[in-house]
């Protein structure tokens, strides 16, 4: 029995091949994990800044000359803010310097003060200390993104501005906090005010339309093709076309949406309705193919059993075959929806690339979507949009994870482990 102890050369090489193959597999998994870690890590690193924001406290004069107690809403709030800044830093004399001084706080400081005054009528007539959203330049300086050692002419912030900011910090007039407005605002030209809510709502509405349209249509198509359609040349052609459709570049669907939905049917431009319909053209083949595969995976004996009992083909399908295929169908649907969530190109064609400040209230209003928002922000010149871009990607990924978790929960519920 020496053969069992000392393996032959052939056995040795077979064992080696097995080991080698396992290591290839591990290597592949390690490589993909490494890429994932690098990608998610860099996004988290870059995007984390967008979730904090900076506020600056400035003492404003709300005396009777500035704000009329009888008609506080008529006051020139923007001027009050500017005067307050001038009073805080009297060394800004030249016009250009003053403009930089005013730029320490966000553009909407005037509106912010108006909201403050109207909410706190008691403050009228006093010297009130009000917190304003700091401008993006101040914000990124505090976040350490600006290199102070570079020559002044190479920097966006002058020595004087940095001096003002340092003074504010030294006096305790600067505070950092969680950036709630990122989740409650729409898009804005000002990075410190820009938020994700309009894009998030747009994406949700678009996906809803996409799901409501593509799910029933795809399921019906798949069930008909798999269970009822006669197998002939015509159904072969349909099958080939569906498979081709899954591989058509998404921008083509965008063009189709532009010419058919917008130009021919006159549907509202930039709306989640059109976006959802265009995306469902993309998701349809994905869901149909997945649904057909899972219907085909149902053992034929179940079908035979039902038909042998005298169930009609429709009863056999809907009572027995479809329920068993449902988990697979749902997986395919989620894959399709996840694709749709990340799709940008077709949305550009139908005008969902617009600058949307308001949160869309219905599927007919102009909206944008998360990936388009990422595209827009990545294109923006302001430095501070860099972190917004990453933050938007984080929100998109979270959306995706939530969707997948939901799918798993639903699948668990429907799956019959008999």
């Amino acid at each position: 029995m020496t053969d069992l102890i000392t393996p032959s050369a052939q056995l040795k090489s077979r064992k080696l091949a097995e080991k080698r193959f396992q290591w290839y597999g591990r290597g592949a998994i390690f490589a993909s994990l490494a890429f994932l870690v690098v990608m998610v890590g860099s996004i988290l690193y870059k995007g984390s800044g967008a979730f904090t924001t900076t506020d600056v406290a400035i003492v404003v004069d709300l005396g009777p000359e500035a704000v009329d107690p009888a008609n506080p809403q008529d006051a020139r709030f923007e001027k009050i803010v500017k005067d307050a800044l001038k009073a805080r830093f009297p060394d800004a004399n030249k016009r250009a310097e003053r403009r930089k001084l005013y730029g320490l706080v966000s553009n909407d400081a005037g509106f912010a003060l108006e909201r403050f005054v109207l909410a706190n009528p008691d403050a009228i007539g006093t010297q009130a200390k009000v917190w304003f959203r700091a401008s993006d330049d101040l914000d990124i300086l505090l976040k350490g993104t600006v290199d102070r050692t570079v020559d002044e002419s190479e920097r966006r912030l002058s020595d004087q501005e940095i001096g003002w900011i340092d003074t504010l910090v030294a006096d305790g007039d600067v505070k950092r906090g969680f950036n709630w407005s990122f989740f409650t605002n729409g898009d804005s030209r000002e990075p410190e005010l820009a938020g994700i809510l309009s894009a998030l709502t747009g994406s949700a509405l678009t996906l809803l339309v996409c799901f409501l349209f593509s799910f029933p249509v795809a399921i019906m198509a798949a069930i008909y093709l798999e269970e009822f359609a006669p197998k002939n040349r015509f159904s072969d052609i349909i099958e080939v076309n569906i498979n081709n459709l899954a591989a058509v570049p998404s921008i083509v669907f965008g063009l189709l949406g532009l010419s058919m939905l917008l130009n021919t049917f006159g549907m509202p431009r930039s709306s989640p309705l059109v976006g959802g319909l265009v995306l469902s053209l993309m998701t349809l083949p994905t869901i149909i193919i997945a649904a057909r595969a899972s219907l085909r995976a149902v053992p034929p004996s179940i079908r035979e059993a039902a038909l042998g009992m005298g169930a009609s083909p429709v009863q056999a399908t809907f009572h027995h075959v479809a329920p068993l295929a449902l988990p697979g169908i749902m997986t395919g649907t989620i894959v399709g929806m996840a694709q749709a969530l990340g799709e940008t190109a077709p949305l550009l064609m139908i005008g969902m690339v617009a600058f949307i400040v308001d949160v869309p209230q219905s599927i007919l209003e102009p909206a944008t979507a998360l990936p388009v928002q990422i595209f827009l922000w990545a294109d923006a010149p302001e430095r501070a949009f860099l972190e917004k871009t990453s933050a938007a990607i984080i929100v998109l990924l979270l959306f995706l994870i939530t969707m997948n978790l939901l799918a798993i929960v639903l699948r668990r519920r429907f799956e019959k482990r008999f």
Partner: protein
Amino acid sequence: MSKTAIISANDVDVFYGEKQALNKINLDIPENKVTSLIGPSGCGKSTFLRSINRMNDLVDICRVEGSITIKGQDIYAPEVDVVALRAKVGMVFQKPNPFPKSIYENVAYGPKIHGLAKSKTDMDEIVEWSLIKAGLWKEVKDRLDQPGTGLSGGQQQRLCIARTIAVKPQVVLMDEPCSALDPIATAIIEELIDELRSNFTIVIVTHSMQQAARVSQRTAFFHLGELVESGPTKSIFTSPEDERTQNYIMGRIG
């Protein structure tokens, strides 16, 4: 056609595309008896069985010529409803194939879709009757809500029989019902077939000649798509008229 025949096949040809699977089959199947169809693999006995409840319709390329009548009604006549036919002619398959539902639901499914139960109590009665008839009631009465697929192979097959007889068919077709079962489960099912004979006409395809000898009163021997010989089981096994039958029974062909 003899007087007691419930099923009667006249010049039945079955084609799969170009290939002829059955050639001019003429066979009468008597009521309330067990008829077994025997023959080597590929001889067409399963094809014939599946022609009786038109399960062959599911195969696109399958074509049936000639006529099969049940109680005088040609089942291939255009006005015949296949669904109604299959309620009258139930089928038990080779591999136990309970639905992935509870034992109760498995049995109740047929009566439900055919509207046989007017109330929950009706349904309970049908389920109990069917399970008792199938010899399964004692084993499962305390776990009717358990999945049917959790039973053993033999129990699953008896569940399938219960499911089939729950719609009170006139004929029960069995396609090698014991080929996936061990000898003990087989013995139980064979006993069951013998008991069911009083209520139903049974046609059974089997590869086991001992089984055919044990359970059936009549036997038909198929060979290469032809019906070679049919008659009382005893005479087929003891004094076959045709040489091919004799060879098969002696184990020389097949």
